[in-house]
């Protein structure tokens, strides 16, 4: 088992990073009925961990006995039936799924699953907790229609099920849905918190951590705890005992992007732009999200850039990032950004060095 899973806190009491949030959740669940919840925060901040711990708190260890299955759904949508396949992860008390996997048909998924869950409502002997929990991931990637239908079904079936929504950015969730949930903001852990976790794991594994080593990993992780633990484990595999100057290797796609960035800095021409496009395609094919590519590319470019230009470059990056979200084919916009950067940089070079 990976350390990320091995040292995932199982109960709300053992949570290390967002212990205050955990305690509040515990109080919420034990003292009264649980409302719909919306967890939002950057990746690697511990949303899922909290949700799992919360489910355990609510239903006991039974919530941990999960099975993964590929379910087929037949949705009757007026004149036609739509068949969808979706991976779900479920226990007797909850179902977890990524409705955005269904693409543009996501709204059918949302409606249908909630309806079905409402039908097979578990009846407890005590008459209590007669509800199931539906965990929906990536709510921010749901289409507008799906979010609307989510809102309606939420109201209609609120007696029989609770929703726990999970997303990165609450701004992409409609107001209507947000106002029906208790919003939980999960911040990215601070670097010293990450260091604390890493040291905890190191102690459990019986490792010798040279001073400052955990801090370096934390710094490289971009405040994502998952990433920090993953790269910690990677370092462990690569070299142990740790040395103080051990290289903490970046992810391969990050390396690749920095390569692209140095390509861009070296030459600015349509030909080079074409080569860059080929490399970008390779990243995209590997499912690296285009937003991440653009962000990382900007980061790498800024590292090598004269401070005079930074402002303008950032402006254009933001502009094309927005365009990318409006548009359909990300490469058009990333390429436009690269072209703009090349054109700015070239102009700058000519102006300074003649």
């Amino acid at each position, binding site marked *: 088992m990976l350390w990320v899973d091995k040292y995932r806190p199982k109960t709300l009491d053992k949570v290390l990073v967002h212990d205050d949030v955990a305690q509040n959740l515990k109080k919420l669940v034990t003292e009264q009925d649980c409302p719909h919840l919306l967890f939002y925060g950057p*990746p690697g901040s511990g949303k899922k961990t909290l949700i799992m711990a919360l489910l355990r708190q609510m239903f006991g260890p039974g919530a941990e006995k999960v099975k993964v299955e590929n379910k087929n759904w037949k949705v009757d949508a007026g004149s036609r039936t739509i068949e969808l396949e979706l*991976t779900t992860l479920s226990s007797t008390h909850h179902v977890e799924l990524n409705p955005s996997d269904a693409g543009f048909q996501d709204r059918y998924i949302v409606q249908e699953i909630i309806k079905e869950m409402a039908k097979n409502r578990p009846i407890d002997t005590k008459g209590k907790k007669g509800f199931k929990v539906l965990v929906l991931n990536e709510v921010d990637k749901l289409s507008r229609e799906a979010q609307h239908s989510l809102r309606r079904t939420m109201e209609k079936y609120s007696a029989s099920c609770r929703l726990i929504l999970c997303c990165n950015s609450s701004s992409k969730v409609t107001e209507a849905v947000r106002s029906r949930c208790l919003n939980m903001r999960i911040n990215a852990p601070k670097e010293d918190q990450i260091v604390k976790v890493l040291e905890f794991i190191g102690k459990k594994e019986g490792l010798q951590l040279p001073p400052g080593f955990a801090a370096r990993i934390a710094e490289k992780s971009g405040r994502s705890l998952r990433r920090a633990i993953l790269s910690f484990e990677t370092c462990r595999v690569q070299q142990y005992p740790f040395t103080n100057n051990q290289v903490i290797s970046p992810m391969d796609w990050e390396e690749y992007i920095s390569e692209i960035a140095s390509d861009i800095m070296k030459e600015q021409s349509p030909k080079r*732009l074409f080569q860059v496009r080929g490399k970008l395609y390779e990243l995209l*094919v*590997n499912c690296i999200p285009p937003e*991440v590519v653009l962000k990382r590319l900007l980061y790498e470019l800024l590292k090598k850039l004269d401070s005079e230009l930074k402002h303008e470059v950032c402006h254009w990056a933001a502009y094309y990032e927005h365009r990318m979200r409006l548009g359909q084919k990300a*490469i058009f916009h990333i390429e436009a950004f690269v*072209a703009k950067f090349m*054109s700015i940089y070239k102009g700058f070079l000519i102006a300074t060095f003649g």
Partner: protein
Amino acid sequence: MGKRTAIVLSSDDDDDNDNDFDFDFSVKPDLNRFNNPKSKSKSKSASVPRSNPKRSKKTRISSSSSNSRSRSHPGKNVNPFDEMKLFCEDFGEGFSGFKVSAGYRRDNKELWLDKYKPCSLVELAVHKKKVEEVKVWFEERICITKDEYCNHVLLITGQPGVGKSATVHTIASHLGAIIYEWNTPTPTIWQEHIHTTNAGLRYLSKLDEFENFVERIRKYGLIPSSLTEEVRKPFIVLIDDLPVINGKLSYGRLQRCLDLLVQSVRIPTVILMTDYGRSDAADYASKCWEELQTSLQKAGACKVAFNPITGNSIVKTLSRICREEKLKITADQIDVIAKTSGGDIRHAITSLQYFNLKSDLKPISKDATYSGKVSHKIDHLDDGYSLPFGRDETLSLFHALGKFLHNKRDTENLPSCDMDSVFLKEDFTRLPMKMDTPERVLGQAHGQARPIADFLQENVLDFLHEEAMDDAWVVASYLSDADTLLTSLNGVLSRNYEAENIIQSTAASVAVRGVMFGNRHPLSSRWHAIRRPLLWQVEQSLWRNKKEMVGERSIAAYNCVNLSELSTIAIEWRPALKWLGSRVSEYNSPRKGSIGGKMVDNNCNMERSNEPCDDDEDDEIEDW
């Protein structure tokens, strides 16, 4: 029996007393095909070989009057080739070909197409070399003893109206050969079908009939009746139209049948195949035709491809007709007709007749202005729809893309820029384009916004000047605008098609004009291959990879407790697992290999994924 009228109407519309017309003999029209030369005498005077008996009577009258005119009717030259269709006695004359259309009632309204059918090799508008090729082939097959050649099949291909059939007929008549012709029989109408099944006759599909025909030809050859004089004349079998096939099964049958034909037939056989334009290449059927051609060639058939007829030969033919009809049509007008016909002589002659009709109606004074108009229009011939006749000009998508990408500009006529009422800054002025407005070109190429934008994005960088980084940005930003426009209506619940249309065309025009505007320093034109957008391929592999990831996730390869987002898998789990290589095996042993070197591996991935779908992709290019 009330159903009968429908059939009769559809088959013969200018027959007034059709009530006693028994249509039962139309059940197996092809049976009539091979038949008794005795009935020949009846059809001898038919102006068109495949005419209906009743019509032929009428034409006899009409043609006798046309005899009085300077030129005798071409069909009247009692050439054996006109008797290619010999009718069966008991069924009355062949009922099968209905190529004749109305217009036989008055002799001056005859179709010029039939009237001026070429009757000698000189009159053929087809290129001489091609004619010669076909002729030599025939001569070799006919004059030399039969067993010397192993292949007796000639395959002639070409666009519609390039004179394939005419060539064969003319050469046959030149060589004095008799043509036995297969024509796709008239389609069976539903009522007819019901009637015949009620009468106990088994339905034969056209393919069945064709198979029977080929079988007969193959096994027995032609058995001429020994009484007639035609015995000594050579025979030619002409298969004008292969039956339309639908689906893999019938394709296989047809192919087998033709293969057998090629291998074993002993009589010179000509198969005519019509090439359809690029625009039709998308549908499955035309793909089949291409495959059939290659398989026929493999089987040993000799292929001659006819090109569209050149403008000059069309002009020649048209002016010949004008001379004989004593028309007052200027050379310019003939030129225009020839140009718009697109190498289709049948179309050109019809246009001429139509044009003649028009100018007949007008008084002479107006005629002068009219012709003036036409000659004015000649300058704008590229407009495509300037003429009262002729077909719309179409461009292939590649042609259009080439125009956009090469971005040819006028460099000489500079002063005309100053005429513009709006004064633009120097940055924004461009030389006038050496082409129609981009929107019109788009319309001619039937370009859709999305593929146009994709193609432009893929290819435009090749056409930019090496140093022109700013241009590249301008182009890229316009393409980004176009993409944004294209998506702007996605996800609107009630689809508004009109708005969508407008957005589509706007996006296309933004993309095209952006590319043309942005490219300020176009390269001097040289040969460029236009690539198919790599993006499509990327999207396919991306989709496949995503599916794979979803699959992996469901085996709980990454996280046993909850579902991770795909992006997290791609960004964090996969690379980390790669580093932890040795431990990966226990998580997902089947995929260990491919997690190995990610970037490299994905290269292979992309290539591998391309191979199987290569065919599809090539086709995609073709139909754009």
